[in-house]
């Protein structure tokens, strides 16, 4: 097999869980279906492939955790499982791929856990990260997500619960706080978040 074919086959197996499942289920059928050499495909160590693919998801999760620590904290022990469910259906791309991942994961959490505290925190993080970046999916391949710099200003006012306010202020869990209004602002020369 030529280098181009090897590179693209391996890259797809690393990042595309559906393709990887097909490969792991029956390597010879996979080779014939996609037109790859039987000998090469059979020689790929399936356990090593799974381990590497899983390590890529773990690295993604670690980077996303750093970008949205409040959401990660709100999800607590459920963060890894929630991220695994999300990661199966997305492939971040570009230099801002971790930000693309974080934005998309926040959307996933708000959709999966609507009306929960984790969803509320994810909405906050989505607005915060979204001050500078917007996420887009690739035309023709909705699995691929990218984060692009925003060109237009952002002015957003939203109401959040007292629990989120307490989290922002670093108060211990369970301490009630006032419902809070938060302004997310990004205009030329001024970017920030204010709350009352």
């Amino acid at each position, binding site marked *: 097999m030529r280098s181009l074919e090897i590179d693209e086959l391996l890259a797809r197996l690393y990042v595309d869980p559906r393709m990887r499942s097909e490969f792991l289920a029956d390597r010879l059928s996979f080779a014939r279906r996609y037109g790859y050499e039987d000998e090469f495909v059979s020689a790929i160590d399936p356990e090593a492939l799974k381990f590497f693919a899983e390590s890529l998801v773990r690295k993604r999760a670690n980077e996303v955790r750093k970008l949205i620590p409040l959401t990660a904290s709100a999800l607590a022990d459920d963060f890894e499982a929630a991220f695994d469910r999300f990661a199966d259906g997305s492939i971040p791309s570009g230099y801002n791929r971790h930000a693309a991942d974080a934005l998309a994961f926040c959307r996933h959490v708000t959709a999966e856990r609507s009306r929960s505290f984790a969803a509320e925190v994810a909405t906050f993080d989505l607005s915060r990260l979204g001050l500078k970046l917007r996420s887009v999916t*690739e035309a023709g391949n909705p699995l691929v997500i990218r984060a692009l710099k925003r060109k237009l200003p952002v002015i957003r006012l939203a109401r959040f619960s007292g629990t989120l306010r307490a989290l922002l202020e670093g108060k211990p869990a369970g301490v009630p706080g006032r419902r809070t209004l938060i302004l997310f602002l990004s205009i030329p020369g001024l970017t920030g978040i204010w709350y009352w």
Partner: protein
Amino acid sequence: VAGAAVVAAVEEDVAAEQPGITVNKLGPPDWLQRLPRLGVGLGFRRPLARPIVEHAAEIDFLEIISEHYLGFSRFDKRELRELRRRFPLVAHGLSLSPGTLDPPDHTYLGDVGELVKTASTPWWSDHLAMTRAGRIDIGHLAPVPLTGEMLGIVCRNINQAKDRIKCPFAVENIAHTLQVPGAEMGEAEFLSQVLEQTDSGLLLDLMNLHANARNHCYDAYEFLESIPLDRVVQIHIIGGHYARGVLVDSHSRPTPEEVWQMLEFVARRVDIKAVLLEWDEQFPEFSVIIDQLSRARAILAGARLRTEVSFAVA
């Protein structure tokens, strides 16, 4: 010619008297010999910013991740200026992807070139890996097929990058759990060919070598004996952890004894310009990091002293 003959005679005498020390007869390229000795440094990570500044006297240099400063926001420029004011810097990239069939991204090279100039780095580095294939972004470093065709592609891409970024370049060996089938040569030979054909330096990551040797059952010292150690510019050290029986280069644990021993082995043979502790995750108390830097410094100093004594004896 007469001078070279004298040097060769002295080297043979030293090797005969001190069989544990291998004196490299070829010597590093001139450009590498002219690089400054930076000492022992630390990878700059923002959670460590405050203790790094507080312990600046114990850290000789910092390695910055190039991608963190591309695009140059006002915050990035300010941070880079402050770091440059306090420390010598080297730039370490993640996205060159020389193992990709497409040439390196033009904009990326331009941005890295600007960073290297702004930060006044004596060299920059990236990995012998691929991070994308066509439009597929892998998201991290993946091994390249060890074929003659891929060797040509890697060398072409590195040479293009070097033509664009006029600063000495070092290529790093990566850790990998998957071995790409169809190899036409071993990893040591592939790496050696890349270094010689592109006239690049080597950023020798000893933890990556240790992990590969463990996971793929080969002798790390045989690997070290098979590569041009005279091209070593910088060394990375750190520790990893075991997961499902596999040694992972997680950059999250203290440097293991095997890596310290390899550092001593290399330091006795070549003049290492820089040793870097590459701690990325699960940061310990900063005193642990300082201890690791001190141990690396002691190893370098001990190796240099032994070399000087050997030549003095000769």
